[in-house]
């Protein structure tokens, strides 16, 4: 019988990393992800995990240490939150362009100003174009599983990309839930030892990252683009394998909840999906045909799956937890992706978005109910009045 534990997301991530047998860990404190590193430092100090624990002098250094270790052939783990994530921005593209699959655990946090500890997706969503695999977990269990899954995907020779393994700050990182601990033998079966085709090794010398002709610029970017085109198939394969070995029931890209006969759905990623499930249940009790579709990977964005799934409904409400000031839809980021994915669909659903939970504000059941009102109306008329609603501050919500 598998061991069950009561863990918050931070601890779950740490145990996931330990089970993945990470070899170089690099830390710098920032709330709320710090808990992950505190947990790992204990495991290393007690000799339960044989890894180098390197105290980076900032997030920029953390990512550099991690991709340096990945380049030398070690499985590397780091993490951050909020402004720490954006401080390290310079290092993301060298890691993905260099095809160095280290992992960065994120417990997200609002960016300044002003100082705010709360969860918000803007920190990592701002880095979505840096060539990293990226997605959010909803529960501590999913955090632990994703940590192991992401290494397997990122280290696949068809992929070789670094990964942002994200969870909502506090809502997931600090609220404990039941976690079924995998056996080490299961993880070892699922995740082979890390091997890089061009590791820095004096017996096989290579030059890593020389200057190129400007004309080769597109070619090197095509490489990453190709990797992202190849990744979805790898994800499907990996998730299937994971489910088989660990006895779970993950969908590769979209987790649907009560969508069978739904008129409208909340399209959401991360920890607020848990509240959304309750909201859907309550709405259903009142006869409202609501459902939820949870996004598991925002990079690579599962365009085909989103088009196919969301076109079944009359209205879709993207529950945004990040900002894109001045963007096409004047609100968050998910709606851009969703509307693009649905552009070629016949009879697309009405799509709008809800700015909610910024700065760590709780997206309450009441907020979901008011979103539901807008969506029910849109489902009825087939039209949306606005592309973005700032929940609690906008008309009708």
């Amino acid at each position: 019988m598998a061991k069950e534990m009561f863990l918050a997301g931070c601890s779950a991530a740490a145990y996931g990393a330990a089970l993945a047998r990470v070899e170089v860990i690099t830390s710098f404190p920032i709330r709320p992800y710090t808990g992950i590193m505190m947990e790992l430092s204990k495991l290393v100090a007690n000799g339960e995990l044989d890894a180098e624990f390197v105290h980076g002098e900032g997030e920029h250094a953390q990512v550099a240490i991690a991709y340096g270790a990945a380049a030398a052939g070690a499985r590397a783990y780091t993490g951050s939150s909020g402004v720490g994530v954006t401080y390290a921005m310079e290092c993301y593209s060298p890691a993905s362009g260099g095809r160095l699959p280290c992992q960065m655990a994120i417990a997200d946090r609002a960016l300044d100003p002003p100082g705010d500890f709360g969860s918000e997706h803007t920190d990592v969503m701002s880095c979505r174009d840096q060539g990293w695999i990226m997605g959010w977990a909803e529960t501590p269990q999913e955090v632990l599983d994703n940590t192991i899954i992401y290494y397997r995907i990122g280290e696949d020779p068809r992929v070789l990309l670094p990964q942002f393994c994200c969870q909502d700050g506090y809502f997931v990182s600090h609220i404990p839930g039941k976690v079924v601990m995998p056996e080490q033998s299961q993880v070892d079966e699922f995740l082979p030892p890390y091997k890089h085709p061009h590791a820095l090794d004096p017996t096989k010398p290579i030059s890593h990252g020389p200057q190129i002709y400007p004309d080769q610029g597109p070619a090197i970017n095509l490489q990453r683009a190709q990797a992202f085109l190849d990744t979805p198939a790898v994800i499907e394969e990996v998730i299937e394998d994971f489910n088989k070995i660990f006895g779970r029931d993950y969908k590769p890209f979209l987790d649907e909840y009560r969508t069978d006969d739904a008129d409208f759905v909340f399209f959401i990623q991360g920890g607020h999906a848990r509240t959304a499930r309750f909201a859907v249940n309550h709405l259903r009790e009142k006869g409202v045909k609501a459902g939820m579709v949870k996004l598991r990977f925002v990079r690579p964005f599962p365009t085909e799956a989103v088009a196919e799934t969301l076109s079944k409904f009359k209205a879709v409400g993207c529950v945004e937890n990040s900002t894109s000031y001045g963007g096409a839809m004047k609100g968050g980021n998910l709606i851009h992706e969703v509307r693009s994915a649905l552009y070629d669909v016949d009879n697309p659903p009405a799509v709008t978005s809800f700015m909610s939970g910024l700065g760590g504000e709780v997206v309450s059941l009441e907020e979901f109910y008011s979103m539901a009102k807008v969506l029910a109306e849109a489902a009825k008329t087939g039209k949306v009045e606005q592309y973005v609603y700032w929940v609690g501050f906008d008309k009708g919500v």
Partner: protein
Amino acid sequence: MSKKKYCEKFSVPEHLTVPLGACIPAPVKEQRAMITGNWRTERPVIDHEKCNLCLNCFIFCPDSSWHLDEEEEKMVWNADFCKGCLLCVAECDVDCLDAENELNFKGGVVRLDKPY
């Protein structure tokens, strides 16, 4: 829904191909992809009679274009890479090196494998 493909497999012409992650094999003795001998306007010419093998040309050459042939006991110059900075001429202990104009055919002009 429309089943449009977002991208077909790319085809990159060979001269623009970049190896995975821009990792290239390390050179062994020379980097033939970056011939610099054609930079010269003047080249060093050695008088082997005068040379006392002080090795200053070898040690001070930024382009590693002087080496000692241990068997022949004489210095060997690498025409393909010498940029003609003439540091060797300036640093020679016994003044056995002279600068010669690159276009002076009497001393023999250096011809490269291909023009760059």
